[in-house]
């Protein structure tokens, strides 16, 4: 995915200063770095930042995951032997980790289709409305721009044992209540995240919907296609690239889940039923002092997300590529 996008771009892979600098010794030095070599200097802070704070840790994570690594005081030299796949074996045979992957699976099965469906429906309606457009748009984005920690407070209040939701449901209220019920805790977290992130995905779909030419709808209307026919045959295929992106981003966000199980269900409760892999990483790595195992878990998680993303791209993206 990433490889394709970088090589497919006309800007990339084409360093300046090709055939122009032929045999002209005084100009060669200047042209070797291109007509505006100062651009290198302008890019330097960003490049150094990316290499030091993002690229290096990426490799470091893999290094940690293959060694017997533990926390030490700064500048203390200790021996950290290479242990092969030991950390990976520890991760994959850990029942808590297995449970967390199951949980994140449940989460994604609920969250991703719901996100794609609802954000497309709402964006489609929002795209056609002319009055109050800004009001609706704004109201959908508000949860997205608000801190999860803040909104979690309200959800706790709404979903507690004798909260407003259970009051409204009356005898239909589940026992035990939503967030302390081992069957409902993860679905509730998934619903919460869908609600919280939907505005962002509506934004993506709105941009994609602008690119569908009006003529398509007009000719479909002339041919007698009703709204649903138009929606399925014009809108859905028209926004397919956006759907791929939405699916991918929703999956990545879902795999990063931490705040919600930590706060909403009080640390992945009940009994680990809503623990996410990142929450287990935090537990194993920082609370219990096993950064090597946690790093291995991170690598496994990322590989898992990549695999899911590839499958999703096939399913959602159709046969075009």
């Amino acid at each position: 995915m990433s490889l394709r996008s970088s090589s497919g771009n006309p800007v990339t892979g084409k360093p300046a200063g090709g055939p122009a600098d032929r045999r002209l010794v005084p100009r060669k030095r200047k042209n070797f770095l291109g007509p505006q070599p100062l651009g290198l200097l302008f890019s330097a802070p960003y490049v150094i930042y990316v290499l030091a704070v993002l690229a290096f840790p990426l490799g470091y994570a893999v290094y940690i995951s293959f060694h017997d690594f533990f926390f030490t005081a700064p500048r203390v030299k200790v021996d950290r032997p290479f242990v092969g796949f030991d950390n990976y074996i520890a991760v994959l045979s850990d029942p808590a980790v297995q449970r967390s992957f199951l949980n994140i699976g449940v989460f994604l099965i609920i969250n991703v289709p719901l996100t794609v469906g609802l954000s497309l429906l709402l964006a489609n309606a929002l795209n056609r409305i002319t009055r109050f457009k800004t009001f609706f748009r704004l109201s959908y984005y508000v949860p997205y721009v608000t801190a999860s920690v803040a909104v979690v407070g309200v959800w706790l209040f709404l979903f507690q044992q004798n909260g407003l939701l259970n009051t409204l449901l009356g005898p239909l209220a589940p026992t035990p209540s939503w967030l302390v019920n081992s069957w409902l805790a993860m679905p509730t977290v998934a619903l919460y995240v869908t609600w919280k992130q939907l505005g962002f995905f509506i934004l993506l779909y709105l941009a994609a919907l602008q690119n569908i030419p009006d003529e398509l709808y007009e000719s479909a209307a002339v041919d007698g296609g009703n709204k649903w026919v138009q929606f399925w045959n014009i809108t859905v295929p028209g926004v397919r690239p956006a759907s791929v992106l939405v699916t991918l981003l929703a999956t990545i966000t879902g795999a990063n889940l931490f705040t919600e199980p930590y706060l909403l269900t009080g640390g992945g409760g009940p009994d680990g039923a809503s623990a996410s892999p990142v929450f287990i990483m935090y537990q194993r790595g920082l609370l219990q002092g096993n950064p090597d195992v946690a790093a291995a878990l991170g690598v496994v998680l990322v590989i898992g997300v990549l695999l899911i993303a590839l499958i999703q791209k096939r399913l959602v993206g159709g046969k075009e590529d």
Partner: protein
Amino acid sequence: MSVTNAQNAKNDDDASRRPEPAEPVLRPDLGVEKRRNLGVGSFILLCVGAFVFLFPFYYMLIGSLQTAPDTSIFGAFPNPANITGANYVQINESINLFRGLLNSGIFTGGVILFTVIFGLLVGYALAQMKFRGRGVVFGMMLLVQMIPFQLLLIPLYVMIVRDYGLADSYLGMIMPFAINSTAVFVFRQYFLQLPSTLFEAARIDGASELRILWQIAIPLVRPAIVTAVLLTFIGPWNEFLWPFLVTKEQSLQPLAVSLANFISNIAGQAGNPFGAILAGACVLAAPAVALFIFFQRQFISTNIGSSVKG
């Protein structure tokens, strides 16, 4: 709410007028344009959506003002007999709200500062300067946005907290977010829309690249800066996991972290725990929501062609 509503409706009118000036006057539903003709079902869908999205925020405010938590249906309406500001006092005693806001502000402000300064530099270079390795930098910027944060969590913690000893410091908080690559991308896109002849002319006139950037390019992309600041703001202001790992000392914690600690540890001891939590939530949410409502135009419009020309 009604004030903002009216204001929005007004904004909405000029917003919808701009992109389609050629549209005939007989705009309202004459069946000419089938697509614009919004069905009742869609309108109800939008209304239900708006209710579902806004109600929790309304309930947050109401709940933060209740003397005793009222979870009955009547609790969703303001009740003069049950209104108090005590929850705000209560939360302020447990976690210093001002200190939390200040820390959030420094954390967020630092990230925005680094992003704007270095982002503008690299964004301009990528869009309007030709130099060896530009493609590599561009590809790097795209790839970086795909790096999952969970993979960096442990190594960054080891490096920043253990090796560099930056635990409980603003720099340690800021570092992993310092230059937002999405904002860099936004800058590049905006600079790319400016005609390159403008910059070539300035170069021929002997202006230095820094001067071109400062005096010509940046004034032309002011909307880009607002967009990028908004985009960048959401990240650190709302971020919980990283500052939570880095700051153990309460006087340095951003509000999101101290409120989360209150929710998970201390809330039980408060007289009206939910009231206090919701009061803290309102304080944390208010700046982001206000900023966003104020600048919503910049956040939404992706095409700024007209503002560049104007």
